[in-house]
């Protein structure tokens, strides 16, 4: 989304006029809306900014530009702890579950995280607890082969996902692995039975080991529904972090701002492509830069 400007100038060009008109504020608002920030955070930001400009009597375009950046970074909160919990504790592997709606990039993200951990010389086990979608276990096993991780799976179509997850964690404990990563089937948050199933997978795992990390995978193209996704998944399995995928496209992923604010759950990782190395830690400054770009 390069040419968002109604005047064909772009936000920063407009901000560089030394008269801050209503058009400029409309433009700021549009830029934020176009990044999927959502109406509420957008209006709040614009109001804050207007107030600051009045209070500080600012007419200097550079200052306004800096203010917008600053307010956004404040909203995204660079102070949050965004580290992944992926080390053995209490004589058992760290256990991570990866959850989210359909097609967002869960399986791919599991593969990429495996790649990073293997590169750090950690022993990783994958659990293919998506027993529903066609060829889901095969897909994860392919990722496992690609990054050098064994995949615990069932060869039976429609096997109980909780049992597969249990087996994977059991294998991880037996092998004294560092981390077990359990991939789960995509499910829409308004499907009560599927959300119950997810809760059950977690409870069954917890019979052997605590679940240290529950990553919600969110597709950067997702609009305002992303907040509903995060809320429901947080209720059911208490998410501890977000992986924002497909940021290599034109979408900005602004919905995570509202999610972080409402739920206090930090974005920890970003997905930047389909390859094994296309994963990066989330960086608040970089995210805001891209959002205003």
């Amino acid at each position: 989304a390069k040419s968002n400007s109604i005047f064909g100038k772009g936000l920063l060009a407009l901000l560089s006029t030394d008269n801050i008109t209503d058009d400029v504020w409309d433009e700021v608002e549009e830029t934020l809306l176009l990044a999927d920030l959502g109406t509420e955070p957008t209006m709040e930001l614009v109001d804050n900014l207007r107030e600051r400009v009045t209070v500080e009597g600012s007419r200097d375009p550079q200052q306004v530009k800096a203010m917008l950046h600053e307010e956004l970074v404040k909203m995204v909160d660079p102070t949050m702890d965004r580290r992944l919990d992926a080390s053995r504790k209490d004589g058992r592997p760290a256990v991570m579950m990866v959850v989210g709606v359909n097609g967002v990039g869960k399986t791919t993200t599991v593969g990429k995280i495996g790649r990073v951990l293997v590169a750090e010389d950690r022993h990783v086990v994958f659990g293919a607890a998506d027993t529903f979608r066609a060829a889901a276990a095969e897909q994860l096993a392919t990722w496992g082969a690609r990054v050098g991780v064994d995949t615990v799976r069932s060869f039976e179509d429609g096997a109980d996902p909780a049992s597969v997850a249990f087996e994977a964690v059991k294998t991880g404990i037996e092998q004294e692995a560092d981390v077990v990563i359990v991939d789960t089937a995509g499910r829409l948050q308004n499907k009560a039975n599927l959300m119950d199933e997810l809760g059950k997978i977690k409870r069954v795992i917890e019979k052997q080991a605590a679940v240290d990390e529950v990553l919600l995978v969110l597709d950067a193209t997702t609009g305002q529904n992303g907040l509903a996704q995060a809320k429901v998944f947080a209720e059911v399995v208490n998410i501890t972090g977000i992986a924002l995928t497909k940021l290599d496209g034109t979408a900005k992923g602004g919905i995570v701002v509202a999610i972080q604010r409402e739920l206090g759950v930090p974005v920890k990782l970003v997905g930047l492509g389909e390859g094994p190395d296309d994963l990066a830690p989330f960086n608040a400054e970089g995210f805001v830069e891209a959002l205003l770009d």
Partner: protein
Amino acid sequence: MFNSLSDRLAATFKNLKGKGRLSEADIDATAREIRRALLDADVAVPVVREFISHIKERALGEEVSQALNPGQQVVKIVNEELVAILGGETRRLNLAKNPPTVIMLVGLQGAGKTTLAGKLSKHLKEQGHTPMLVAADLQRPNAVKQLQVNGERAGVPVYAPHPGVSSEFEDATGDPVQVARDGVAEAKAKYNDIVIVDTAGRLGMDAELMQQAANIRAAVQPDEVLFVLDAMIGQDAVATAQAFNEGVGFTGVVLSKLDGDARGGAALSVRSVTGKPVMFASTGENLSDFEVFHPDRMASRILDMGDVMSLIEQA
């Protein structure tokens, strides 16, 4: 604080009640709430802008209704316009005069193409056709296997000469363009009257893969190119729809994952920006979760119109 459109409109109605005609101020007040509702439903900003200005224009010229107050009247206009845009030129699948009919599926990663291939083949088979699926995604791990499983579930043959990326075949082998071309020849030879070509997911800005899609299109000369779009998509819908329309060109849209609770404003965006009709709705993970698109339902969904309409009735 008013959170839902109906709450906010109720407040607006209160202010407007009793006035006999649509003044510019009346329309502005309602339009502001409608704008917010459309944005909350993920309708793209430029589309909202154009839509609202059109609504204002139309509302100003409108005869004053006896039965409705001004706010209600604006809402009614909005609903009518939404249905008109979403429903304009609905049509059935174009079938080739000389079979096989070729249908190509395109879209972003994870949109629901491979699942749709299964659904569409099942649907067409039930109508007495003899479809064949073609596995031209050789890139996403185990995409070929996924299509084969779907084909099996639908009872439809799958042409898959290359396994694509799988644990035994780390690197993609085979050329998707060639597979698609051979698939059509295969269908001709086997007397399958419809060919559905599944392609890899790609980003709008990925010039190389967009060219590949265009090459597949050129090789198989499809009767329909269906753009599969996730109903949860936000503001990126416009850029993506434009990129696919310019890069490959599509003839129709399928909105997927409509079984979720996203309001699905993208339907309006894609329709407004490309003029291409939304033809089908994908509504679940099972192969039977597939329907013809209903513009009126979509309009109420986008606007939360269920509530609003009952409000109008109460008033």
